[in-house]
């Protein structure tokens, strides 16, 4: 390997960056493979998600520990849950994983327009989920369960709120991608960026499955 | 270090090692020396730790000895020495992984044994609730006849009978504190919302010093304590004089003594809102003062209980003890004189522990 093969970025991009050469590289060489063969960006996302596992792990453990600590607060989270409603919004979030897959397929095929549409759909479904959560939170608050009610309610709001924030960040990320795509910044060869955003999105989705199970479905909420 | 037991040979060796560690702290001023246990439960852990110290000293000497040897022996002789390039030796590495592992498993097994031993409930205990407050200790004695009743409440200075199992239940009303009387037992947290248990059993009649060991806010340093271990008979006397069912002699309100004026002031200046004097007031923010004069120290045991200190205290508690929850009540010197006189009538000074010195001296 000679020096000219090193991308000037020092940031080898994708294994398959066969497209136009990086601007600073006159020769137009493809970016060299990384040591692991996984692109830096993707590996970074994986490490980041590993870190996120512990974040949610700690939050879920906290909820688990506290779900029956009702203190002096009268309202029991287990009683105010509207499981059918939350099931529907969970379903919406699950569907968004599907549209995310479709978006990625679009970009990988080179069908950028369709890719963008699916991205928008994903963002929309995500927003729908957030809307559902906002509605749920307001109802709970009207029913007298706030973050201040008791440790169980505190844990409920913080856990689901953290997850909701993650979805919201994901939505912003998706919209940014749509915007970048409109500017022509995500050609087919760069579809990996969609894949990486997808990793995050699916992760948040999977976390919700766990959260939903632990918070709403597991017996023992009193 | 005047352990009253005859020294067994093992202990003698331990003492040598320990005195290596504890250099010259032997006698004077070692009221909280953990290496001079005077209680059943502190002796248990001590019996293990000195052995572990010996192991540690051996490992220490080995490692440092090797280093010193190498430093002397293998100093470079010339800039182009050509030492043999050794890349490792699996056999050696396994050896020095296995040997420490074996040593530690033995130490670990002994530790586990002790942990279960210390956790066991002991027969026929005296039950005392120890309640941590910012920044003083409250002791509530359970009535031996009816365990659910509290019959004596006192503060900072705890009296216990020598040679009996004492079961302390640690509680806290605010933050986490840590009850520690080193010569009697290891420490355990007083955590709000949880009850912890700690057994102590004093070997000798003595005053055992201790203090709150967990950082608990501004005056954590000023949250000391004493445990007075006395023969059962003395303890019983003390207990009787303390007992809340025995109304302490109230000063006669009709005669205009300083004490009776103090008793008035006690109500008027708000003291009664925070302090209990049995039969007279029922505040529960500050220490129960019913037996105040029978205590040799006060306010987290940072003051010896004498008039001079008491006057200082009443003049400006937060000034004497940073952050103290007892406010400066802007008392006049006259008030202070009266209140001091009144406080001297609460409890029996003859049961003070002044006749027994601190343990280990």
């Amino acid at each position, binding site marked *: 390997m000679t020096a000219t093969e090193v991308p000037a970025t020092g940031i080898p991009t994708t294994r398959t960056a066969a497209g136009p050469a990086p601007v600073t590289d006159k020769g137009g060489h493809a970016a060299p493979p990384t*040591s692991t063969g996984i692109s830096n960006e993707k590996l970074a996302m994986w490490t*980041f998600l590993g*870190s996120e596992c512990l974040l949610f792990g700690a939050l879920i453990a906290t909820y688990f520990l*506290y779900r029956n600590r009702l203190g002096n607060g009268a309202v029991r989270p287990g009683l105010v849950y509207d499981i059918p409603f939350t099931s529907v919004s969970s379903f919406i979030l699950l569907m968004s994983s599907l549209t995310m897959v479709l978006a990625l397929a679009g970009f990988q095929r080179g069908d950028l327009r369709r890719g963008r549409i699916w991205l928008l759909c994903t963002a929309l479904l995500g927003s729908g989920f957030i809307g559902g959560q906002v509605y749920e939170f307001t109802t709970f608050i009207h029913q007298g369960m706030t*973050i201040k009610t008791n440790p169980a309610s505190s844990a409920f709001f913080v856990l689901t709120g953290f997850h909701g924030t993650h979805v919201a960040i994901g939505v912003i990320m998706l919209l940014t991608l749509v915007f970048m795509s409109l500017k022509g910044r995500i050609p087919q060869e760069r579809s990996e960026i969609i894949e990486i955003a997808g990793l995050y999105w699916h992760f948040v989705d999977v976390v919700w499955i766990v959260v939903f199970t632990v918070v709403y479905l597991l017996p023992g909420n009193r | 270090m005047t352990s009253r037991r005859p020294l067994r040979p093992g202990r003698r060796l331990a003492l040598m090692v320990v005195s290596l560690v*504890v250099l010259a702290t032997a006698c004077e001023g070692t009221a909280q020396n953990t290496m001079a246990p005077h209680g059943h439960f502190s002796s248990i852990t001590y019996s293990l730790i000195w052995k*572990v110290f010996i192991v540690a000293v051996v490992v220490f000497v080995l490692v440092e000895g090797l280093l010193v040897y190498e430093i002397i022996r293998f100093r470079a002789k010339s800039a182009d020495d050509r030492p043999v390039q050794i890349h490792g030796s699996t056999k050696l590495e396994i050896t020095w992984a296995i040997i420490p592992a074996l040593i530690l498993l033995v130490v670990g097994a002994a530790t586990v044994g002790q942990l279960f031993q210390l956790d066991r409930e002991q027969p026929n205990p005296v039950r005392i609730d120890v309640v941590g407050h910012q920044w003083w200790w409250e002791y509530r004695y359970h009535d031996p006849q009816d365990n659910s009743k509290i019959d004596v409440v006192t503060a900072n200075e705890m009296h216990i009978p020598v040679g009996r199992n004492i079961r302390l239940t640690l509680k806290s009303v605010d*933050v986490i504190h840590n009850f520690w009387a080193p010569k009697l037992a290891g420490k355990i947290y007083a955590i*709000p919302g949880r009850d912890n248990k700690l057994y102590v059993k004093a070997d000798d009649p003595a005053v055992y010093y201790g203090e709150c060991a967990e*950082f608990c806010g501004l005056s954590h340093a000023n949250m000391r304590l004493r445990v007075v271990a006395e023969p059962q008979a003395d303890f019983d006397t003390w207990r009787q004089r303390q007992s809340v069912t025995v109304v302490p002699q109230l000063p006669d309100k009709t005669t205009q003594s300083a004490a009776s004026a103090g008793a008035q002031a006690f109500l008027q200046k708000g003291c009664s809102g925070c302090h209990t004097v049995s039969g007279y007031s029922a505040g529960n923010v500050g220490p129960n003062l019913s037996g105040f004069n029978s205590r040799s120290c006060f306010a987290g045991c940072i003051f010896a209980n004498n008039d001079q200190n008491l006057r200082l205290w009443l003049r400006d508690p937060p000034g004497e003890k940073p952050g103290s929850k007892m406010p400066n009540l802007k008392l006049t010197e006259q008030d202070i004189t009266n209140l001091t006189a009144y406080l001297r009538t609460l409890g029996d000074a003859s049961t003070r522990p002044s006749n027994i010195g601190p343990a280990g001296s």
Partner: protein
Amino acid sequence: MATVLDKPPLPPTTDRPLDAALFQRPRSTHGWVSWLTTIDHKRIGTLYGVTALTFFIIGGIEALLIRLQLAQPNGKILDANAYNQVFTMHGTTMIFLVVMPLSAAFANYLIPIQIGAPDVAFPRLNAFSYWTFLAGGLFLYSSIFLGGMPNGGWFGYAPNTSITYSPGHNIDFWVMGLLITGVASTVGAANLVVTCLNMRAPGMNLMRMPVFTWMSLVAQLLTLFAMPVITVALFLLMFDRNFGSHFFDPSAGGDPVLWQNLFWLFGHPEVYILILPAFGIVSEILPVFSRKPIFGYPVMVFSGIAIGFMGWGVWIHHMFSVGLGPVAVSAFSISTMLIAVPTGVKIFNWVATMWKGSLRFTSAMLFAIGLVSQFTVGGLSGVTHGVASHDRQQTDTYYVVAHFHYVLFGGSIFALFGGIYYWYPKVFGQLLDDRLGKLHFWLFFVGFNLTFFPFHILGIVGMPRRIYTYPTGTGWDTYNLLSTIGSFIIALGVLVFMYNIRRTDSRFKKYKLTVDADPWDGRTLEWSVPSPTPAYNFAEVPTVKYQDDWWHRKYTVDDAGRLLPRPEIDEVRARANDGLKPGQHPHFPSPSFYPIVAAFCFPIAGYGLVYGRASGYNYVITGIGMSLLLVTLVAWGMEPSVAPPEDDAPAVHEEQPVLVGAGAGSAPGLGAAPDGGQPALTSGGGAPPPGDSGGGGGGSS
């Protein structure tokens, strides 16, 4: 999110999408702006180092205040309130603002060079980590002017830190400050992990990576997984304080022990985050100055990994007096003791590395031996803590304070200073004076032991931690006084160190001295590039054939297994000093404004949260901070990671932060000093710097 941030370079058609740019691309290569916008891992490493050492002085001055206060019974230097702030900030500073970033300094500077990479995986994120760390540190210390520094101890036990018992803003600053530095550590960790895994030069497989890189990798993985745990703990506390939740409020059914579990589940891996890079440094220094390879390289690597793993299973040993019952305590007592096994293997392997070596006692070597001898003491006291039944006597006493200063100061700080002496020529192109270095070492060695050995005794005779005063007649006076004297000897050592830096600098400037690429006869790749390291690291990407590749290019062994210099050794050494040759177009980093701008959005958001309790309107400030952050990040995502050629700075002359005077001089020091010791870049005499033509080559720097 990294994906959005470090976008690949653009195809030519959408070359300059400056429609989204907030800032013009910075161009300066020298002067202070270039330091603010640099994304060169070496400069960032240097920034980390200088900042951490500054915080070390601050934390050290706090320590001196503690020592002055405790020198005698009833000390009057500090009152209770001041003392509590000072010891809290001392611990917090030393852990989060000194040892972690100082280790990060070495990791940033060295990992890419040790693995033959031009930079870290995400250079701009790297700059972002540094600035976020600095922002967090400044934020923490801004509390001095805003009502008082944090005062709940470095482990901030609830409920003492709850709003009821700590109503001031002190704890808010602590919570937000640690959250901010936590972002910095997490991002930095992800970056370095990817770098180690992905950026290795051809042939640099994992089992050829230098031990320092390995230990840093393990430490960064621990950071990656430990930080979220304390983040959760801090968030819960923040919700309790600001929004009335009841996580740690016992009166409403919350459990203060949850805080302890979360904190120590972070806290124990954290202490290995603090020591593993130090172990790595020592594993680099000892072989070089023993002229022998590290004894048992694979075992050194795997024991480090084992320590990393086991570190997750011992946190309860900080909670032996919580009253968790004998079963849990037994399990954690045993796991705690067993950590001594992999650590012991390391100690003995270091001893074996020196065995029959040819030991050169340079300052760096002395500090490394200092770690081996003193960490052992701290480790052994750690094992006595592990005896859980008796730890109930030790915990919360000065015996624990002795333990962790022996491992943290006697271990981490000694190794880090050793690392400074060792790599200083590589970073600054100057060799620190060895005599002063040794004086520094001996002052540290004597001062350290005089300060901290008496703590063992103090703990044993019953002195609790975190007391701002103690009465007369406790028997503690003498030891405390000795300790205070010792701490000032340490301070003298620090002053000698600072003097050494100044003197070295002026001497090198005055006599126009330079340093050879390989002044110590080193083993790893960083010694195969000129000193100081040029901006591009490697003119040509190295191909690695061995563990300790650089050493194998210089030496081989004879039949008896003895060291044998290769015939071409002098030539190999000389070539290491070469700069760029015509036709070589290595990587130059492209500076950017976004990292620093994004980083300083955090304290804005932080102030909003600190003051949010006073008035809900203050949360608007948080909103502003987060929105600014969002805008910055999006714009950052739009900026190509490498400046387009039009932006090329004309020259790369001034790239290096610390200029070595021009002209070839003979390098002082122990290594060979071939001619032409002067890197081409600084002499200006070598090859024409690339990029001069403006058209191709490197990006701007």
